[in-house]
């Protein structure tokens, strides 16, 4: 059976609810509670993901969780996910070692609309673990840098010790064709960067909001304030993209756990424009 997803690719010839075995081929400790898993198909591979899509990772015997792709591999069959240990399943995923096998379904959902940003300035705003789903956007932009004007990446974290992908941030800074600004909520002696909320950097980032597209990912409260700051700066709502976090279970729009008003985040999202969301983010308990 072939089932078409809202992405342009087929989800799987097995049916989207059947996990495919993947083997951990590399594992990196990013933070004290956060691991990156590089996985490869044991046999038949799933389609490779577009930036912003997610997959369901199954720790056998424990459970399944939706995890964004933190790097999009060109090779069919390879995938990279960054996981924070917050519950039984994610703790099990973070405890995996090279050679261990998990089940994978996906990729699912609608990712970042990168073509719409071509020819203009770009601002990427990431908070905390939200850097993981937007890293593929930054890498895609840098791989085709000539297609974009000024590019700025604004990153917020709890403290310097909680900064994700510090090596990538350094490498991006070293290119000189992308502005990378990092701020933390609080810092001890020795930190010489910014301290404050990531949204406070939006008013001063050197871009032209009339031509710019923003990609925003982080805790939902942060995204709401970031979107408001971007609108104040002059961004059009349809040029502000946010990636929502909801309780995805089936990932194919059947179970309704991720419903947000009239939309299923697993199928129509997780990436939406602020214009498409309208006031949905402001509705309590939705």
């Amino acid at each position, binding site marked *: 059976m072939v089932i078409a997803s809202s992405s342009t690719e087929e989800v799987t010839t097995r049916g989207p609810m059947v996990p495919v075995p993947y083997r951990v081929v590399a594992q990196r400790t990013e933070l004290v*509670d956060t691991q990156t898993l590089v996985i490869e198909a044991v046999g038949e591979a799933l389609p490779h993901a577009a930036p912003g899509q*997610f997959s369901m990772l199954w720790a056998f015997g424990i*459970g399944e*969780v*939706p*995890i*964004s792709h933190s790097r999009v591999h060109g090779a069919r069959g390879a995938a990279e996910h960054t*996981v*924070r240990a*917050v*519950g*039984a*399943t*994610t703790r099990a995923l973070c405890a995996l070692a090279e050679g261990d096998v998990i089940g994978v379904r996906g990729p699912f959902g609608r990712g970042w609309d990168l073509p719409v940003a071509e020819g203009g300035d770009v601002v990427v705003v990431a*908070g*905390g*673990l*939200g850097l*993981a*789903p937007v890293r593929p956007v930054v890498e895609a932009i840098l791989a085709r840098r000539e297609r974009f004007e000024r590019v700025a990446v604004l990153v*917020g*974290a*709890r403290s310097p010790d*909680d900064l994700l992908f510090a090596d990538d941030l350094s490498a991006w800074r070293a290119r000189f064709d992308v502005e990378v600004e990092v*701020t933390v*909520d*609080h*810092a*001890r*002696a020795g*930190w*010489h*960067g*910014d*301290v*404050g*909320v990531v*949204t*406070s950097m939006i008013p*001063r980032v050197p871009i032209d909001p009339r031509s710019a597209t923003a990609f925003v*990912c*982080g*805790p939902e*409260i*942060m995204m709401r*304030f970031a979107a408001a700051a971007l609108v104040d700066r002059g961004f059009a709502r349809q040029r502000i993209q946010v*990636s929502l*976090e*909801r*309780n*995805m279970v089936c990932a194919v729009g059947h179970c309704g756990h991720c419903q947000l008003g009239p939309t299923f985040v697993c199928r129509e999202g*997780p990436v939406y424009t602020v214009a498409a969301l309208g006031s949905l983010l402001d509705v309590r308990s939705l």
Partner: protein
Amino acid sequence: MTVTSSIRDLLAEHPFFAGLPDADLDLIAGCGRNVHFHPGQLVFAEGEAADAFFVLRRGRVALSVHGPQSDEITIATVTDGDVLGWSWLFPPYRWHFDAHATAETSAVALDGACLRDKCDEDAALGYRLMQRFARLTQQRLQETRLQLLDLYGREHHGHRIVEH
């Protein structure tokens, strides 16, 4: 040829003073002087007399407080286009935090007593200045509240992971 900007020109270019009448800028500039701080240099210290505020032209200044074991915790930074300090506005005119430059920093320091006198003499100038400080205070308060939420802490799962 070296072009030296006057204090008044520097203030006119700064976003904090955007929209102020020329006459106000002339009055305010009379209380100003250029200052420069090297990385690590103390701008002011907690408990000292708050006799000025700083209009940052470029650079970065960290506001910090000492923790229980004398660890220094930075709670905020200000940078190009920001204004540093409002303790000069209210008695007892003492700084509540330490401030250090963390980069080469150029600013205009405005004398607090001088500005207070001018605001007392010209209530309209005082009102326009207080409007700007009230907006700045509101903005800093909102940012501080967001920091207090600890959005990136463990209770917020970051992204894509919703698991209990």
